[in-house]
């Protein structure tokens, strides 16, 4: 009984923090329609700032709190609203998602530049308050304070939403911004208030959480992700449910720590840490979803032209020749970087299929790649073509399995479920000694080509270039096929797709399976290239960064995938030359995404439309109907 109570107290304390952070997310979402993926990062920055002031500079606790909570956090919220959120007002969910993910990378980058992650920091609780015995359980002052603050936040929010004009406006703005405008409130003012309030709540949660866990950039940024689960319980709207969700998550986690059978924990050491992810995944799955709805015109301007077969083959050949020639001129490091970049490029291609064409956002692509590398390493001696095939098949099946429950989810919720999957997989699979051994890595070989094993780096690069070329040709061929049109159509308008008889779910499932298969291929190649793979290669942050780089370069184009892949490999190399900033990759990517937020096709997707080529192709298709063919040709030439 005592143990149960003690565990419950801990659970309630964590639950209280989750509830605070989740309520911030909900407030921002409810007022601006933007789900802020950077919410956790805001909390992380606040916790570090608080440490800087109170510990490093020795300011009094209350003064430090005041500076962080009442000055820094509101200003941060305001700046974000002004610079980012406003341009997202009528943007698609996917764009908003990318931009806030970018913001998260920027904040993480800034934080790791300012506060060197190597240094260990301790953030003490606020006051050295005495602990009290409640019902025979020791409860520390900090714990009581956290719970009291959560209750205070709940009451304050309730009061604000019920009784102030701002609160009424906040509730109206999600349901119908135009209605709100008619009632005389400005949606922009309301959204600004929401961002400020959300940012303050994130900061409070970060400061409360840091002493409970550790003051570590990644941990804090991701731990606040746990709040996402609570927010989703409230369907991003309902604050009481959100608080209940937070409490439930905290309790479940804490009880699990106490009561989970020892055998589970020895087999899946990460299971406890992964609980919030499993919780989030489960909540997403049982959450009632909106029905397919016609939503009317979403403006997408200038979609990049799709290259024809001849053009894509020519491009691929050029790439291979370039690799073969350049290989003789480049240094070893450059060759290694480019080879890596080509593999990342193939991963990016798998995202072109999934995100660019089918519009499904996955934050777990490198998780799939990791499984591919693992399968490659384990099957048939760890370096055979059979292993490559096994990796592709296993990953395609895995992709479909992951997508299966997620099929009913759309946009934001889908992204959240892939995030839960990626992070959960890191905890229970990649960090698991039973999987990658206690050294944390396994060896993977390269398959031989025509009986000759590929040993020189130069040859390897050429092989990888041809692999990328083939994958690129395949991706473009899929886009030009009936299946490709289906993918794009289902993305552009699910409602219209259904009314012309396309099964939306089947299409999505296929997109996931194909994309995962390609990612599996990339995984096998990655393993062969590196020789050794470990858990660190396949983290959530890497998945996000690569996806965002691809968005910058053009998420619907093969050339975009190539540039993104090379960039993803090259940025860490650049990093070693720029010592005054850490996490260059994240910073560049984050800033880039925020900047190109306005270019829906990325930097490389805005090339002019070549109507004539398309017309010639169509004319060939319509040879059975000479008149139509003529009209098409004439029109294109006009």
């Amino acid at each position, binding site marked *: 009984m005592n143990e149960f109570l003690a565990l419950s107290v801990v659970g309630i304390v964590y639950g209280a923090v989750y509830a605070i952070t989740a309520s911030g997310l909900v407030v921002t979402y409810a007022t601006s329609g933007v789900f802020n993926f950077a919410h956790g990062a805001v909390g992380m920055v606040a916790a570090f700032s608080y440490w800087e002031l109170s510990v490093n500079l020795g300011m009094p606790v209350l003064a430090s709190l005041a500076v962080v909570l009442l000055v820094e956090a509101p200003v941060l919220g305001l700046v974000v609203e002004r610079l980012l959120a406003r341009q997202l007002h009528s943007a698609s969910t996917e764009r908003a998602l990318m931009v806030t993910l970018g913001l998260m990378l920027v904040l993480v980058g800034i934080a790791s530049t300012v506060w060197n992650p190597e240094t260990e920091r301790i953030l003490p609780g606020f006051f050295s308050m005495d602990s009290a015995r409640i019902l025979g359980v020791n409860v520390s002052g900090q714990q009581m304070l956290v719970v009291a603050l959560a209750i205070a936040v709940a009451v304050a929010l309730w009061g604000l939403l019920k009784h102030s004009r701002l609160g009424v406006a906040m509730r109206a703005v999600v349901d119908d911004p135009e209605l709100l405008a008619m009632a005389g409130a400005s949606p922009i003012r309301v959204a600004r208030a929401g961002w400020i309030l959300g940012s303050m709540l994130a900061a409070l949660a970060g400061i409360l959480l840091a002493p409970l866990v550790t003051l570590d950039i990644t941990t804090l940024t991701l731990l606040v992700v746990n709040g996402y689960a609570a927010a989703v319980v409230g369907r991003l709207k309902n604050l009481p449910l959100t608080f209940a969700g937070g409490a439930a998550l905290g309790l479940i986690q804490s009880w699990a720590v106490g009561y989970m059978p020892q055998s589970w924990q020895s087999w899946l050491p990460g299971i406890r840490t992964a609980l919030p992810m499993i919780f989030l995944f489960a909540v997403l799955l049982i959450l009632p979803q909106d029905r397919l709805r016609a939503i*009317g015109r979403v403006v997408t301007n200038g979609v990049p032209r799709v290259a024809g077969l001849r053009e894509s083959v020519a491009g691929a050949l050029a790439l291979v020749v370039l690799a073969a020639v350049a290989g003789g001129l480049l240094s070893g490091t450059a060759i290694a970087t480019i080879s890596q970049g080509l593999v990342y490029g193939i991963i990016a291609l798998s995202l072109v299929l999934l995100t660019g064409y089918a519009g499904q956002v996955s934050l777990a692509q490198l998780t799939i790649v990791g499984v591919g590398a693992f399968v490659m390493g384990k099957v048939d001696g760890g370096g055979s073509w059979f292993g490559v095939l096994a990796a592709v098949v296993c990953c395609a099946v895995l992709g479909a399995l992951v997508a299966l429950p997620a099929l009913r989810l759309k946009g934001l919720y889908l992204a959240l479920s892939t995030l839960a999957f990626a992070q959960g997989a890191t905890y229970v699979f990649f960090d698991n000694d039973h999987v990658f051994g206690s050294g944390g890595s396994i060896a993977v070989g390269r398959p031989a080509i025509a009986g000759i094993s590929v040993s020189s780096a130069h040859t390897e690069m050429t092989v990888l270039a041809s692999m990328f070329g083939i994958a690129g040709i395949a991706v473009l061929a899929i886009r030009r*096929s*009936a299946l490709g049109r289906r993918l794009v159509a289902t993305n552009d308008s699910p409602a219209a797709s259904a009314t012309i008889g396309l099964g939306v779910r089947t299409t999505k499932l296929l997109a996931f399976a194909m994309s995962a298969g390609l990612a599996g291929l990339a995984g096998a190649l990655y393993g062969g290239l590196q020789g050794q793979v470990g858990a660190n290669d396949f983290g959530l942050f890497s998945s996000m960064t690569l996806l965002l780089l691809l968005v910058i370069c053009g998420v619907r184009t093969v050339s975009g995938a190539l540039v993104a892949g090379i960039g993803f490999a090259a940025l860490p190399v650049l990093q070693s030359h720029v010592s005054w900033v850490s996490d260059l990759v994240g910073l560049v990517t984050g800033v880039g995404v925020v900047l190109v937020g306005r270019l829906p096709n990325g930097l490389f997707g805005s090339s002019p439309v070549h109507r004539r080529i398309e017309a010639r192709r169509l004319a060939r298709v319509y040879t059975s109907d000479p008149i139509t063919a003529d009209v098409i040709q004439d029109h294109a030439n006009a």
Partner: protein
Amino acid sequence: MPERPAEPTGVTGISAGATGSGTSGEPAIELEGIWVRFGGLQALQEVSFSAARGEVSGLIGPNGAGKTTLFNVATGLQRPERGRVRLLGREVTRMGAHRRCRLGVARTFQRLELFWSLTVEENIRVAAEAHLHRRLRGVGAGLLRGNASPWNGPSDGGLRRHPRSQTTASTVARILDRTGLTGLATERVDGLPTGTARLVELARALATDPVVLLADEPGSGLDDADASTLGSLLRELASDGMAVVLVEHDMGLVMRTCHRVTVLDFGTVIASGKPSDVRSDPAVQAAYLGAPGVEVPAR
């Protein structure tokens, strides 16, 4: 504000009058006692409506009357609280949108729902392909519970490839031609003017070879000449045996095109019958002229 129905021409000789009046066949689609509620708003209340093959049935009513909602119910995008939907005599009330399409319902959307990243031709083609594969698979499709197999594209290779894509191509060419869109085939739809985009929606709907065609304000954004071409096209489609339902605010177009007209107001049917009778119905006139406060702001 909808146009006032009073127009001197009325049902004029402009329409081809292809079907003799009174030859209306079996109802192809029947909606019976439909109720739909959105929160506090009763959008449809005990609405019954049917459309027969060979006819253009008009569905009119002031803004917010519930016309689009009724289309959503008919196509399976909105589940009614109460009421039943029958398609060619078959109960489909609980059937999903994509399966209903395979039974032969197609529609256009008032707020455009085009495939914005595809060209005009591809928009039509994707619908034709979805439809063609259903036809080719014939009975087998029913056994597989009508779920679309992905392997329907030209990609499934082999001997059937050629004839299959040829069939699609000729279907698409025919529809492009019939809707007058041939010259715009390679154009991306996101650059088109609204009126033309509406035609693409219509063409895409036709590519599924429907028995019932629901057109939601297809004429808005078209100039008078194009609108009357559209009217004749709808009449022709009906005379080919399709059941066409037209929602339209352009009263002239409705009067010229429709064989029958049903009037919705505040979610209930207030009149139904021949265009000329409906037009002179006092309840309809009242609904359209409107008491003050009836006007609903545009959404």
